[in-house]
C-alpha cells in the first residue's frame, strides 16, 4: 500500500514529525510518499530513514524548493 503525506508549507521539524506519525500507522512493506518544501528536510528525512533501516525507493525534486521522497516501512 502507498500513502501520501502532504507537508508543503510546513517548516522543519514538522515534515519529519508528521512522517514519523504516519509511519507508525503503516505495516511492513507499505510505502509513505512525503511531499515537502522545507530545505532542511532534504537532510532530516533521508537521515531518519537511514538510521531506521527504511529503504528510500524514490527521492527527487518536484520544482524549485520542492521535493518528494518515498520511504518504505521495513
Amino acid at each position, binding site marked *: *500500500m*502507498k*500513502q*501520501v*503525506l*502532504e507537508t508543503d*508549507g510546513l*517548516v*522543519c*521539524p*514538522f515534515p519529519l*514529525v*508528521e512522517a514519523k*506519525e*504516519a509511519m507508525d*500507522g503503516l505495516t511492513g512493506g507499505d510505502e*509513505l*510518499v512525503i*511531499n515537502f*518544501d522545507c*530545505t*532542511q528536510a*532534504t*537532510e*532530516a528525512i*533521508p*537521515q531518519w*530513514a*537511514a*538510521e*531506521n*533501516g*527504511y*529503504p*528510500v525507493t524514490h*527521492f*527527487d*525534486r*518536484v*520544482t*524549485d*524548493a*520542492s*521535493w*518528494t*521522497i518515498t520511504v518504505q516501512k521495513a
Partner: protein
Amino acid sequence: MIITGLVVGLILGFVFQRGRFCVTGAFRDLTLTGNTRWFSALIVLVAVHSIGLFLLNSFGVITLEAEPFPWLASIVGGLVFGFSMVFAGGCATGTYYRAGEGLVGSWFALIFYALFSAVMKLGPGAEFTEGIRSITLDNGSLPASMGLSPWVFVVVISAIAVWLTVHHARKLKTPMAALPPRKTGLAHLFTEKRWNPFATAVVIGIIATVAWPLSAATGRNSGLGITTPSAHLTGYLATGDAELIDWGVMLVIGILVGSLIAAKASGEFRVRVPDQATIIRSIIGGIGMGVGAAIAGGCTVGNSMVSTAQFEYQGWVATLFMIVGAGVAAKATIKPRKSSAPAPAAESRTV
C-alpha cells in the same frame, strides 16, 4: 577594509545554506527526539574553532581578552533566546539564511529580531541590558578560573569531537538516500550534492577562525557575531549614522546575500508564504530572539560557536540554557497536526 566582512559573510551564508546547518534543530532534537547528530556537529565546529583561535593567539596574530562572566544575563538571555528560536523556526543565522531561501516567515522573524536587538542594545532597552550584564563573576573562562592552559581544554574538546564523529558515522544502518545528480564536477559539489554535517562544521570552524583577524584588522577585535551587527544595521537604517557600519554589519549582509546565491544556484529558492499562525509565531520568535540575544551577549553564533571556543562560561552557560529554552518550547508546541492522517493515494502529485 570592512569589505572582507562582506566576503566572509557571502561564503558563510553559502555554506550555511548548502550545509543546512541548523543550531535550532540541534538543540531542539536533544529533547524532542534525543537525536544528538547536529549537536555533535556543533561540538566539532567549536573544537576546530578553538584550535584555530588559540593557535592565532599563541602566534600573536590576535589577542583574546579576558572577560568577566555575566552569569544572570547568560541564564536569562539563553532561556529567552532558546525558547524564541523554536518559535521563529531558526536561530539568528538560521533566520538569515532561510530568509535568503525565500521563506516569508523568516523575513518577519529577521525584521523583528533585528529591530528588537537594536531596541535592547541601542534604544530604550539598552539600560536594562547593561544593568543585567553588569552582574558578573570574575574569571570568565574555564582556563582562567582553573589556572590551566587553554590547550588542555582544546585537547579535551577535540578528543570528544573525534569520538562523536566516529560514533555518528557508524550509526547508519543503510547509506543515506541522495537526490539523482543532474550536474557534474564543481557545480555538483557546490550546488547540488548533500554536504555531510560534520564536514560543514569543519568548514564553518575554519571560516570563523579566519574571520577573527580580518575583523580585528578593521578595529573590531572579535569573531563572528550576528546580534550586535543586526542592531547596528537597524540603527544605521533608522539614523543614517554611518559610524555604525562596521565589519560585522558587512558580515550579516553577506550572509543574507550568500544564502540567496546558494539557494538560487541550487534550485532551492522560492518565495514561500506561510499560514497566519506561522507568521505570528515568527514575529513573536523574532522579538524574543532579539531581546534574548542582546541580554545573553550573543546568539547561537556569538555564544555557542565563538564564546564556547574560547572556553568562556558565558558561551557554555548561555548554550545550556538555550537548550533548556528550546526544549521547553519544543515540548509545548511541536506536535503533528490533528488532521494529519494521510490519505490513501493512487496518483502522483500535481504541481
